[in-house]
């Protein structure tokens, strides 16, 4: 999605339509209710998500996460509670650093948490850091959250949604990886050559891999 499109505060449908136009989702199939005010992202948060997704999956010889609108997908996904993000956080996992982002129902406001966490790590405005510094900041957050035995972190769900958003986009699924809806046959034993890309259309692998 291009930068700077205004977010419709009253009705998410406007943004959904825009999202649909940008990533090729037929508008008619987008069925969205209004977002809670809670979930309405500021322009800064939209920019932040676009930047964060691009830091995770940058443009290479194939499009990056920003190119395919992954940031807005993550915002949509968090607003609708994908990957359990509207479920109450286990009480044992709520640290002082998380407690100010809790909703009354025990779920977490992921976007404000991420915004604050990035700014704190940046000692100020995340966007005033150089691209290399931003990458370094996010890499540290990622390493801490993904380490074996790490305490619960909201980053794990956000990262998962970034990957979902990117690898289920047309470019992520069919340019970065391979997508074949109708293989037509099954070959049980083939050589795997260096450079062979993974399948986004291997549904069992998507589920269990």
């Amino acid at each position, binding site marked *: 999605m291009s930068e700077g499109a205004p977010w419709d505060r009253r009705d998410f449908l406007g943004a*959904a339509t825009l999202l649909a136009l940008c990533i090729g*989702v037929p508008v008619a199939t987008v069925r969205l*209710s209004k977002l809670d005010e809670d979930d309405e992202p500021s322009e800064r948060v939209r920019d932040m998500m676009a930047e964060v997704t691009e830091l995770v999956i940058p443009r290479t010889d194939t499009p990056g996460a920003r190119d395919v609108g992954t940031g807005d997908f993550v915002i949509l996904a968090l607003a*609708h509670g994908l990957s359990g*993000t509207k479920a109450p956080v286990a009480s044992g996992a709520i640290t002082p650093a998380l407690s100010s982002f809790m909703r009354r129902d025990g779920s977490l406001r992921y976007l404000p948490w991420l915004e604050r966490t990035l700014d704190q790590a940046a000692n100020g405005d995340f966007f005033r850091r150089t691209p290399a510094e931003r990458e370094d900041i996010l890499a540290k957050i990622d390493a801490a959250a993904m380490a074996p035995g790490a305490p619960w972190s909201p980053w794990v769900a956000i990262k998962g949604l970034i990957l979902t958003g990117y690898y*289920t986009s047309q470019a992520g699924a069919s340019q970065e*990886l391979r997508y074949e809806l109708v293989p037509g046959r099954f070959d049980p034993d083939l050589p795997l050559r260096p450079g062979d*890309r993974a399948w986004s259309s291997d549904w069992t*692998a998507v589920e*269990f891999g």
Partner: protein
Amino acid sequence: MAEVSTQFDAIVVGSGITGGWAAKELTEAGLKVLMIERGRNIDHQVDYATEQKAPWELPFRGVGDAEQYARDYPVQMLNRHFNEFTQGHFVNDRENPYQTGQGTAFDWFRGYQLGGRSLTWGRQCYRWSDYDFEGNKRDGHGTDWPIRYADLAPWYDKVEEFIGVSGAAEGLPQLPDGRFQPAMALNVVEQALRERILAQYPDRLITIGRTANLTQAKEGEGRGACQNRNICARGCSYGAYFSAQSSTLPAAMKTGRLTVVTDAIVERVDYDATQRRVTGVRWVDRNTGERSSASSRIVFLNAGAFNSVQLMLNSASEAMPNGLANASGVLGTHIMDHANTISALAMVPGFEDRTTYGNRPTGIVVPRFRNLDQLDGDGFTRGYSFQGGALQGTWTRGKRMAGIGQGFKDELQKVGPWTMVLVAFAESLPRARNRLVLSKQTDRHGIPQLEIHFAHGKEELAALADAKREAGAMMAAGGAQVIMGFDQPNNGGTSIHEMGGARMGHDRGSSVLNRWSQAHDVPNLFVTDGAQMSSSACQNPSLTYMALTARACDYAVRELQAGRL
């Protein structure tokens, strides 16, 4: 109340795996049949709306709207085949409530539409053997089956040939071979594990899943060969897997003797106490609430095990105050569902330079090896079997990996490592305490909801404990490294093999149905879905339901022709 004036020979309640078979067999025998389906119509090919869609063409990329799911599909969303592509083939839980008893955790997965769960089923087709039909008699759980393998073998032949089952003949007495289409292939890792495990455990065989996916087209029936997409539950316009839409319904329609009514919830079977016969059924239109009825000479219940029982309980009358055909008092009792869990998830090193092409729509099976000729189970007397397979990972493994940036992206571009999964399905013992009753709560049409009381017992837990140990041992024999495994069962219902409640048996005092799936108390009433099961074996049950249905239809037609019904 509107009355359908046509006189039908038979009414079939339900249009799924067994309802389709009943309609086909009865119409082909010359009967005029009314099929009543509670859900919407789904036309083969034209109504598979998401079949060709890519994830990027759906608003939630195939994952689905979790907010909507929490509201409308809190149970169905737990099904691993439920997603944004397939959600239209599952019930709205909010509109179709059920109750559970104290201490019961039961996930009831349902598809209320023409074709029922034949659209979304796992397609695994396994014959039972006499180890299964004699199981109740051998250890005293449940009641003895009034039939044996020889009674069903010719009907298995008939069903397999018509629906098309691909599989490999292995000559195992506990899992009899069938009339198979050519087998799908084991992949390179499964083949290697088969050989390595057999070398150490000659009684444990990895064989390809026997699946109702065609490896050879059935052109005469308009069914194409499987395209190895593995998206069956969206609906398949090739007609390559068995569903009522692809197979039995077209055959029944071709006779010109089938009438189908959809959106019609049958709430009652009418019973005439003076004649000791059922006379027809009553239903409510799920959209308009209008009530209708129709009459027939015989009635087949194929609403799905639990709903057929619900219908019989709800058809209590002055003459039969405890439910239709329930003189025995066992209607609703002895329900079962296989206890399942992931026994082993293992990494398989040594195949880093091998891969596959295409999405095979079946996994592997390791047939039962416990409690065959010798009772060798530790704390259990029945069987379990494994299903699963070997696969290579894809991008989703990144959700568990540290890293960001180009190196991370490049890593996820690679085909992932090989893993092997073994899921155990353990036989569920028939127990009187596991039962269905009518709840005091009603649905929006005023029909009593079903209340499910169910818990696995110590025998199932012992079987799953053994399965975890043995899966680990087999993986070690295969050179694989177990990452995790479980021995506690998932919730009841999650095998989607719920069955029993109107069991077959030798006598009317202790069973609902006789050896022909015919009610002891009401000779023109047949129940040929999962409700009729007296034990559960550990195989996927649908093939057996279909064979029993075809057999019951043959019997019913002969009895009708002889003037005895």
